C-alpha cells in the first residue's frame, strides 16, 4: 500500500507541471497582454506608466522565464497579487473563499448520496415498476435541466412568489449581532436553495449509477447464496447487496469534483454567495489574470487530490484490490 501511495504521489509531479504549463499557456496565448487589459480602461495612462507596469509584472521578460518565475512562486504558494483595486495577495483571497465553496459542496454531496443511494436501490429492486419508470424520467430530466434555469425558477417561487427563502447572500444584514442559534438558522435558510441547485443535477446521474450498480450486484452468486440460506430480503439487499454496490461510487466521487467546483460559478453568481466560483467569475469579468490563473491551478489541484483520495479509499474499501503488488 505504501509503495503504491508513493508511486501515485510521484506521478503527481508531472501532472502538476502539466497543469501549470496548460494554465500558463492558456492565459498567455490569448491575444492582449494583461497590462493592455488594465490600461484599456484608462486612456490617460501614458507610455511611461505602461512600461513601468509591464516591468513590474515581469511581462518584458521572455515567456519561458516568466513561466519559470511563476512556477517558482507557485511552489512557494505565492500566487501573486490581484490586479483589482485592493491589490491583495491572490492566495489570501482564495483562502477566505475556498471554505465557503467546499462546505457548500460537501453539504450538497451528503444530500446527493443520502438521496441517490436509497433511490437507486429501490429502483433496482423494483425494476420495471411504475416507481422505476418514474425515476428514469426524473433522471433524464435531471440531466437536461440547465442549473441556472432551475436556480431562477426556485428563486421566483420560493423567493419572490412565496417569500419563504432569502434569494441572495449567506446571511441577513445585521445577523452578526444575533445569538448563535438564530445566526445559524438564518444561514441554513440562505443555504437551502443553493444546495438544492448544486445537488440536483448530479443527483440524477448518481441515482442512475446506483441503480445499475445494484442491478449488477443482484445478479451475482453471493446474493443467490444469501437468499438460499434464508436471510430476509431486507438483509440481502441492504447489507449484502448495498455494500458491494457502493464500491464504484467511491471512484465516482473523485470524478465528480471538477464538475462540482465548475458548477459553483453558476449558483454562486446567481445567489451572490461569496465563494470561489464567484471570485473566479469576478476575476474573469475584470480580467484579473493572477486570480484566474490561481483558481484554475487550485481547482485542478483539488481534482487531482480528490482522485488520489478516491483511489486510495477504494483500495481500503475493497480488499480484493491489492495496490502495488503484481
Amino acid at each position: 500500500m505504501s509503495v503504491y501511495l508513493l508511486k501515485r504521489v510521484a506521478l503527481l509531479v508531472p501532472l502538476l507541471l502539466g497543469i501549470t504549463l496548460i494554465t500558463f499557456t492558456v492565459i498567455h496565448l490569448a491575444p492582449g497582454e494583461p497590462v493592455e487589459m488594465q490600461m484599456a480602461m484608462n486612456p490617460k495612462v501614458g507610455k511611461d506608466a505602461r512600461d513601468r507596469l509591464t516591468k513590474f509584472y515581469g511581462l518584458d521578460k521572455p515567456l519561458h522565464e516568466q513561466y519559470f518565475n511563476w512556477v517558482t512562486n507557485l511552489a512557494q504558494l505565492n500566487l501573486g497579487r490581484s490586479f483589482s483595486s485592493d491589490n491583495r495577495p491572490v492566495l489570501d483571497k482564495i483562502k477566505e473563499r475556498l471554505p465557503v465553496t467546499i462546505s457548500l459542496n460537501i453539504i450538497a454531496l451528503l444530500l446527493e448520496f443520502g438521496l441517490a443511494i436509497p433511490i437507486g436501490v429501490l429502483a433496482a429492486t423494483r425494476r420495471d415498476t411504475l416507481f422505476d419508470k418514474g425515476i428514469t424520467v426524473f433522471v433524464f430530466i435531471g440531466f437536461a435541466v440547465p442549473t441556472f434555469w432551475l436556480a431562477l425558477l426556485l428563486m421566483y417561487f420560493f423567493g419572490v412568489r412565496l417569500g419563504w427563502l432569502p434569494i441572495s447572500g449567506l446571511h441577513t444584514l445585521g445577523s452578526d449581532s444575533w445569538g448563535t442559534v438564530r445566526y445559524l438558522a438564518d444561514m441554513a435558510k440562505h443555504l437551502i436553495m443553493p444546495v438544492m441547485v448544486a445537488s440536483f443535477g448530479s443527483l440524477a446521474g448518481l441515482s442512475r449509477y446506483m441503480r445499475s450498480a445494484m442491478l449488477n450486484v443482484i445478479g451475482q452468486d453471493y446474493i443467490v447464496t444469501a437468499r438460499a440460506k434464508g436471510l430476509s430480503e431486507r438483509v440481502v439487499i441492504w447489507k449484502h447487496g448495498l455494500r458491494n454496490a457502493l464500491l464504484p461510487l467511491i471512484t465516482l466521487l473523485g470524478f465528480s469534483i471538477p464538475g462540482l467546483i465548475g458548477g459553483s460559478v453558476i449558483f454562486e453568481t446567481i445567489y451572490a454567495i461569496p465563494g470561489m466560483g464567484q471570485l473566479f467569475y469576478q476575476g474573469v469579468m475584470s480580467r484579473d489574470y493572477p486570480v484566474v490563473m490561481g483558481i484554475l491551478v487550485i481547482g485542478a489541484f483539488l481534482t487531482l487530490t480528490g482522485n488520489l483520495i478516491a483511489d486510495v479509499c477504494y483500495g481500503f474499501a475493497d480488499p480484493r484490490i491489492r495496490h502495488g503488488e503484481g
Partner: protein
Amino acid sequence: MARFSQSYTISVFWPRLKRNQLAIAGGTVVLILFIVSLCAPLLSPYSPSEINAYSVLSPPTWHHWFGTDELGRDVLTRLLYGSRVSLKVGFVAVGIAVSIGTVVGLVSGYYGGVVDSILMRLVDIMLCFPAFFLILAIITFLEPSIWYIMMVIGLTGWMGVARLVRAETLSIREMDYVLAARCIGCSNHRIIFRHIFPNAVSPVLVSATLGVAGAILTESALSFLGIGVQPPTPSWGNILASGKDYIEFAWWLSLFPGLAILVTVLSYNLLGEGIRDALDPRIKR
C-alpha cells in the same frame, strides 16, 4: 467494409433503434428543431430584433404566444432564431471535439509506447481542470463571439472521445484484417484511417450525440453569464439572462427559454442513449 456496415445498419441497428420509443421521440424533436431553425423567418410574422415600444413586457397573448421582452420583441420569435445559435454551437463544438478526440485516440492506440503515454497524460491533465472554469478563463481573454465559443467548447471537450477511440483501437489493432492490411504493405496512415477508423467510430456516435446536448447547455450557461453570444443576437441563454432581471414581473421571459433548452437537451440525450442501446450487442430485447 462499407457494404458490411451498410447491411448492418439496415438489418440490426435501425430495427433496434426503432423499437425504442423514447429514442424515436427524441429523434423526432431533434428533426423538428432543425426544420424550425431553418424556417424561422417563415414561421413567425415578427422580426427577432425589431423593437416595439407599445408592447413592452406583454404577458403571453394571442398575438405573442410566449409574451414579449423588455424591448417589446416577441419571445417566441427570439426563441426560434435562438435555436440557430444552439444548433450551430452544438454541432460545430462537437465536430471539433470529436475530430481531435478521434485523431488523438487513433494515434495513441495504434502507435502505443511513448506517444501513447504522452497523449494519455495530456488527457489526464486536461481532465483535472474543472471544464467550466477552463472555458470561462479562455473565453474571457478573447472577443466574445460565437466562433470562439464553439472552438473553446470543442477544445475542452475531446478527452472522453480520445479515451473511447483509444480503447477501441487497442482491440481492433490486433484483428486479423489489420494484420492482413499490413501484410499487403498498407501504410500506417492507410491502416489507421481506412481499416481501424471505420470500425472504431460507432461508439463515437453516442458520445457525439450526447456531446451536442452538453455543448448546448454550456453555451446557454455562458450566454446567461453574459460571456457567450452577445445581444442583440438572440440565444436561449441571453434571453434567460434578461429574464433574470425581470423575474419579479415577467415569468414568461424566464420560463420559455429554459423549457426550450430542457426539451432540446432531453431529446438529444434520449436519442444518444437509444443509439447506445441499439449498438450494444449485450442488450437483448
